[in-house]
């Protein structure tokens, strides 16, 4: 079912939204004007694979992909704030975490987290940013 992607995205974004200790989030294709000097997160939903998990007719599918969250903090103020956000994200999306989500048709899905890994901090003036890539998968 194609709408599975909507549900996976909703599951991941809801989980992010429910995580405390993080700044406001710029979601994909939603107008967001970052204020210089104020930290924020930016998300990217990257589905990478949809493959039959078993042989035969109407097989269960394995879906997988990456949910990227980039923590932007003001430049020139050291790496600590971005590092702290990365730590919170890695903890919230730790490997083997299952994220449950119920859609408007009262159908519940469980998205499993495969890994969460951060990249090095980089400068993109006026921001310093750290990216966290969260690998997810689901059988449906």
């Amino acid at each position: 079912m194609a709408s599975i992607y909507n549900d996976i995205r909703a599951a991941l974004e809801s989980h992010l939204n429910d995580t405390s200790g993080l700044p406001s989030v710029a979601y994909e294709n939603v107008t967001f004007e970052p204020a210089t000097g104020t930290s924020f997160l930016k998300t990217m939903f990257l589905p990478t694979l949809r493959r039959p998990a078993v042989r035969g007719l109407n097989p269960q599918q394995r879906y997988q992909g990456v949910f990227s969250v980039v923590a932007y903090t003001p430049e020139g103020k050291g790496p600590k704030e971005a590092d702290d956000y990365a730590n919170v994200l890695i903890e919230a999306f730790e490997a083997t975490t299952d994220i449950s989500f119920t859609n408007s048709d009262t159908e519940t899905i469980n998205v499993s987290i495969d890994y969460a890994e951060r990249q090095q901090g980089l400068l993109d003036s006026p921001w310093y940013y750290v990216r966290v890539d969260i690998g997810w998968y689901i059988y449906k």
Partner: protein
Amino acid sequence: MKAILKVNSSLKTKMQRLEQMAEDAVKDRLVDIAQSAVKYSPVDTGAYVTSFSYSVGAGRPRGKSSKNRPRNQNPNAMRQEGLSNLMSDVSRISDLKNTTSIILRNASPHAEAVETKHGYSVFAILRNLYG
């Protein structure tokens, strides 16, 4: 007391064939990764997609700047050039079966901007598929 164990002469041949199969499997994997790398890369000037390298040690990686290069290049031609670069790197790895790590790198100056600022996430996708 001693025991002399005779090794079947065909065993050595079989071991060599197994080694060859393992080497071929690694090569196939490198080709798959190379094809995905160029497939997920954006193409404008072609500087990014032709800046991938496989390396096994020291050496200068490919790194082209998009500055002063003509835009709107043919994506297929540029991707083919990028793939040929990587295939040539694979063929130059002399002792693949004893190689413990191979690095895929893109040393174009705008590689990080392509990855996160422009959101193409080429390496994030490759790590997800092959990591």
